[in-house]
């Protein structure tokens, strides 16, 4: 009989307890995975950003616009190979809960710079020839059941009034991280209406996107842009798309930290559950372990027994937890989408997260065995043989 079979036999002695522990660990792993997935979703925009794009916005705040006249000056700067611009549109579909990001874009240059947005040539032509047209992401189309030719009514919050856009194309992302829940409408159409209603604010853009030939020079180009517009009527702040997205993540930093603390607390709970089972097991077998010692088992053998049992239970729990994560994550994503709309487009389960949670659990299992191990090592054989439970 090897130590391995001994461990297996021991596990079967209290099968119900072992299964309860494994299920307990599985629930913790499930919660851990959901949290990590949420944190990852937060960084979704950062991962999706391209290294050769810079964002130029007003130095004081994104809520202040830049003049359209900056476009030509940006385009003529050295190292810049393309300029696009966009505004946050801020429309509301039906009620306030129907939130999805809408951008008013310059159709030609924006699609030229954002190569990850894939539309067929036919759809692109249709979008370019219809001022009231819009492109929507496939995820958005699926969520609301929209097809090409459908009319989407929006209520403007930044640009007042009722708006109607006709779906001219449904885009897909070339990368798995591409956000497929945007609605892109035409800046020229929006600006036209703005000229009639709010001429003071017409002819301005929310931000520029510039493409640089060499990502390695992004820093110096950003500096050159900001220097060019220093002391003008609207000073700029230029940063890589990644840094720009990180800014949004950093502003919600406290919530993310809280989630991370929670993830650590979860592992603490695994530790407690597992340690509890092992302590019980070892206490019950006090006399048995003493007998093993008298038979000549060394401390290292006994330690292997305890750690082996811990790893087996944790392993079982990990497998269960990972299996539960996939359907649970799906439910969770649907639940979030129903309550919050498209705030979190990237709530998909990820193999890396599963592997992370499993390895952390196995590590925790080793830690959990330390408490019973100390008890085993301190044992007094003569006294333990008299032990009556």
């Amino acid at each position, binding site marked *: 009989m090897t130590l391995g079979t001994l461990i297996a036999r021991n596990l079967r002695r209290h099968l119900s307890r072992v299964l309860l522990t494994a299920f307990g660990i599985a*629930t913790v792993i499930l*919660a851990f995975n959901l949290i990590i997935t949420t944190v990852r979703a937060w960084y979704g925009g950062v991962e999706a950003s391209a290294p050769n794009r810079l964002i130029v916005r007003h130095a004081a705040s994104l809520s202040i616009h830049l003049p359209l006249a900056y476009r030509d000056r940006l385009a003529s700067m050295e190292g810049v190979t393309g300029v696009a611009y966009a505004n946050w549109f801020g429309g509301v579909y039906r009620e306030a809960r129907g939130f999805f990001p809408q951008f008013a874009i310059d159709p030609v240059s924006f699609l030229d710079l954002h190569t990850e947005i894939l539309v067929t040539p036919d759809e692109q032509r249709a979008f370019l020839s219809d001022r009231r047209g819009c492109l929507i992401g496939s995820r958005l189309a699926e969520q609301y059941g929209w097809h090409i030719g459908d009319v989407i009514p929006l209520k403007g919050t930044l640009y007042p009034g009722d708006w109607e856009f006709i779906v001219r194309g449904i885009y897909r992302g070339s990368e798995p991280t591409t956000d497929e829940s945007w609605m892109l409408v035409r800046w020229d159409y929006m600006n036209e209406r703005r000229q009639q209603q709010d001429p003071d604010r017409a002819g301005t853009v929310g931000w520029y996107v510039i493409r640089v030939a060499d990502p390695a020079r992004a820093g110096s180009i950003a500096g050159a842009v900001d220097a060019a517009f220093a002391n003008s009527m609207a000073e700029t702040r230029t940063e890589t798309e990644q840094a720009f997205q990180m800014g949004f993540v950093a502003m919600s930093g406290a919530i993310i930290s*809280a989630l991370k603390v929670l993830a650590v607390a979860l592992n603490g709970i695994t530790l407690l559950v597992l340690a*509890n089972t092992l302590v019980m097991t070892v206490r019950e077998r006090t006399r048995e372990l003493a007998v093993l010692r008298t038979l000549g088992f060394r401390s290292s053998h006994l330690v292997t027994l305890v750690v082996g049992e811990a790893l087996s239970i944790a392993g079982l729990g990990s497998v269960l937890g990972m299996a539960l994560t996939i359907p649970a994550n799906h439910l*969770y994503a649907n639940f979030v989408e129903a309550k919050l709309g498209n705030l979190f487009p990237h709530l998909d389960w990820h193999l890396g997260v599963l592997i992370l949670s499993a390895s952390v659990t196995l590590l925790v299992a080793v830690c959990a065995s330390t408490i019973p191990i100390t008890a085993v090592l301190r044992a007094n054989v003569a006294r333990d043989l008299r032990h009556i439970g």
Partner: protein
Amino acid sequence: MTLLWTYSIRNVWVRSSTTVLAIAGLALVSLVLLAVLMMGNGLDHALIESGSEDDVLLMRKGATTEIASGIYRDQAHIVRTLPGIAKTPAGQPLAIPELVVLVSLAKHGADTPANVTVRGTQPEAFTLRPQVRLTQGRQWQPGTVEIVVGAHIATRFLPNGIGSHLRIGKREWLVVGILDAQGTAFDSEIWGDVDQLMAAYGRDSYSSLTLQLSEQAAFRQIEEAIAADTRLLLQVKRERDYYREKSVTMATFIRLIGLTVTFVFSLGAILGGAMTMYGAVASRIGEIGMLRTLGFTRRTILAAFLFESVLLGTVAGVLAIGSGTALQFITLSTMNWSTFSELAFRLTLTPASALLTMCFAIAISLLGGLPPACRAAKITITSALRAQGR
């Protein structure tokens, strides 16, 4: 019966290591629930309490936030002449047009900037929002580039406090005072002179107008008057409703993830509790047989084991609430998704959330303890006495 209660309590002591682990697990789960509730409470407090019962906010039709709204000077003048608005001691209508803008400030000790709300207003704003008080320094002088900053702004962005300078718009502003808004959203704002701020941003329209009702019933009257005036095109909202709407997304998010996680956890905790109690029963089968022989009924034994697990739950609940009290000193800051501006809030422990946590801890320990307790009660005297002590 009393004998059995003390028996349970003594048992908890005897198996101290298992008990400590079980209590710690239950307490952690309860603490997570409590922390989630406290975050929700803090956020609600910061946003909803920002609005006063008697105040009404006017914004451009369709605008969902003050930042996105605009009110022209002539519109503001028309509104100020409406009846139903409270008067200042000087006899002026208590209706203040304000300009709200966002500025990026670098947080002290961090290089990532955060968006901060700057509110151009008038000195009467203090009458309008009685929860805001000046705690240090003095009020800004109307017509000058002086500002007062909220308590959170002072601690997070301006370590030098009064006397420091801030660049807002195209001007340098001097900090002359610090506000205490009792944990509401105004603690995360900067206040200054409205006309100076408009000049700094080259704007000639306000963002919003806040007025105080002379009496509650005047709300409808003002709402109708504004709807009837075609020059106005404004929406009328009670200030409280405005702030409540702003908190919806954030609060929903926090509660959503928090409660999902707590739900998953509590399943784990019930399993953990059941396990502990099964262990307690299994190791005491001989004792149970003895008790039954002595004449204790099945029901008493069931009660004793249930009492034991509830005892564990109660201790865990007390521990969780105790730690929750310490959590109250934590201030979190986050971006409010509806306005894209920084909002600081403090975890807040309310009696209701403490009670809920206690009930939760007891409920999961009871659920976990019930199956093993039933098992203990079902054991027959003969089989129990035959069982070997382990």
